[in-house]
């Protein structure tokens, strides 16, 4: 075991996560399913209980003190999120239920209004179902056509092929920033500039990015970007859609209801301004407020420090697991986030997952909601270990030992 990070006190960080100190099946929990959802620090949990114990009320129209406090806290998260991803203004931050909700919002509120039969949408072969199905629905509604940018065997998008798909018919490009299955970090800034050259708008699925890497939407110059709170140490049920003001303003509302209106008569309704135009109904106030604590948690440690630690985990994990009998890595892209997807020859991922769970080790097994990618790679599924800032080298050792034991039984 080696410890290369001097600046991060991982033990102190672990103390912030109550869930990590438990035993699972009689063994200390090793949580390696962070790409599915991360655990939550005390500050996030406390923000939720604090809100319900002290400030609970409906926001924006209440004139009493509690409503004022809740509104201020809710809007505080918006302002912090704006700075977190370097958006130009806080009105460009729309709170959603999560990444999936954000993609559906754009596909319906932008796509249905601006796409016509024969227009084209480009996604890649490594997309999560949430960045495939909303576009298929849109194609069904408009007659637009879905085009798929292929990947190579390592798990990188083949840029020349991507460029070849771009034509004057291309209206939307929607690409995952970091693949949940392969860990590939896609060159989204470059892809965005290529999309723009063809006259298309660029949407970025950043669900896997926020806990690991700094996002700068101005630098990327993407038109839309979506992510979820729960993958970045925040609560479930809250996510963010960033969109450029010029685009958000010309889109129709996604849902109708309270909050999103300006003036309602039975004859005609005028809509509120952005971001409220897209936040119909009482929003997820508590979780939005707690999301602020998740962002602060990340900022307090610093993306650079998190990334350095996770890169060490990735490097050590890859080295160690590569020594296993029958180890087959899935996804060996040039730029990778802290995800190790793999198979062990002759053992089904499901069996590995069950046996690791019996040893207190939580990994993900299966197709990871990327069935077309599994088809492309001609595999049924993988075992996926994905790391967060609170994971340790010693936990990787436990994973390796666990796998050795399982392999021995099956050989």
């Amino acid at each position, binding site marked *: 075991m080696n410890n290369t990070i001097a600046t991060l006190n991982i033990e102190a960080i672990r103390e912030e996560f109550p869930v990590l100190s438990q035993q699972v*099946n009689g063994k200390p929990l090793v949580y390696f399913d962070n790409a599915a959802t991360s655990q939550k620090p005390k500050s996030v949990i406390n923000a939720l209980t604090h809100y319900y114990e002290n400030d609970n009320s409906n926001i924006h129209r209440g004139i009493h003190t509690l409503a004022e406090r809740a509104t201020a806290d809710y809007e505080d998260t918006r302002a912090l999120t704006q700075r977190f991803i370097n958006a130009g203004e806080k009105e460009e931050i729309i709170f959603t239920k999560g990444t999936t909700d954000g993609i559906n919002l754009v596909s319906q509120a932008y796509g249905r209004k601006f796409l016509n039969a024969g227009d084209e949408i480009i996604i890649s072969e490594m997309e999560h179902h949430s960045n495939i199905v909303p576009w298929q629905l849109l194609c069904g509604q408009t007659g637009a056509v879905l085009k798929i940018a292929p990947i190579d065997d390592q798990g990188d998008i083949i840029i020349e092929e991507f460029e070849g798909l771009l034509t004057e018919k291309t209206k939307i490009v929607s690409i995952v920033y970091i693949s949940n299955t392969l860990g590939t970090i896609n060159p989204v800034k470059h892809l965005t500039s290529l999309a723009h050259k063809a006259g298309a708008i660029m949407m970025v699925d950043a669900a896997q990015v926020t806990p690991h890497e700094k996002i700068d939407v101005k630098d990327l110059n993407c038109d839309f970007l979506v992510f979820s709170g729960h993958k970045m140490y925040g609560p479930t049920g809250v996510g963010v859609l960033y969109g450029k003001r010029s685009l958000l303003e010309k889109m129709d509302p996604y849902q109708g209801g309270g909050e999103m209106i300006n003036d309602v008569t039975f004859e005609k309704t005028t809509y509120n301004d952005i971001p409220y135009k897209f936040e119909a109904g009482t929003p997820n106030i508590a979780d939005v407020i707690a999301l602020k604590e998740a962002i602060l948690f990340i900022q307090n440690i610093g993306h650079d420090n998190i990334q350095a630690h996770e890169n060490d985990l990735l490097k050590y994990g890859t080295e160690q697991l590569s020594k296993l009998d029958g180890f087959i890595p899935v996804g060996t892209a040039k730029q990778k986030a802290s995800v190790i997807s793999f198979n062990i020859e002759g053992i*089904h991922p*499901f*069996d590995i997952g*069950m*046996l690791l769970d*019996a*040893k207190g080790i939580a990994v993900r097994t299966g197709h990871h909601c990327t069935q077309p990618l599994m088809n492309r790679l001609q595999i049924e599924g993988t075992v996926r270990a994905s790391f967060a800032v609170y994971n340790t080298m010693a936990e990787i050792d436990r994973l390796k030992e666990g796998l050795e034991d399982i392999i021995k*039984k*099956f050989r």
Partner: protein
Amino acid sequence: MSESLKNVQEDIIEEFSMLEGDMEMIINYIIEIGDQMDPLDENARTEDNIVKGCQSKVWMSAQIADGKIQFQADSNTAVTKGLVSILVRVLSNQTPEAILNEDIFFPEKIGMNRFIGTQRSNGFGSMIKQMKIYALAFSAKKTSNA
């Protein structure tokens, strides 16, 4: 005379109680008993014989001889193969009527939900359902032949 459905289930409960709730021992035991199951006939591994509703692939076929059903099954995963082998052991050598009418109580008694999880319990339920469908089909055939 074959062992009653109740007795086979009680044997299984007894065997699992010896594992003292140790998850690793339980899963390894399930894999072991799956290994010992008679292999499924190669030509029974068809699309038609796949049990729907299971996360892993499960193939199942059944024959009736002397009024009793014999089940055969297989799976692409070792744990699921073990799980289905328990059901094959419980429900084989039974009459269609016994399979349809008698209580299948062993999953609850051994705490199946706890160690295979809710989602896979649904898959386990699908296997039982499929076996009951076989029993129903054989029972209907018997009635129409009578």
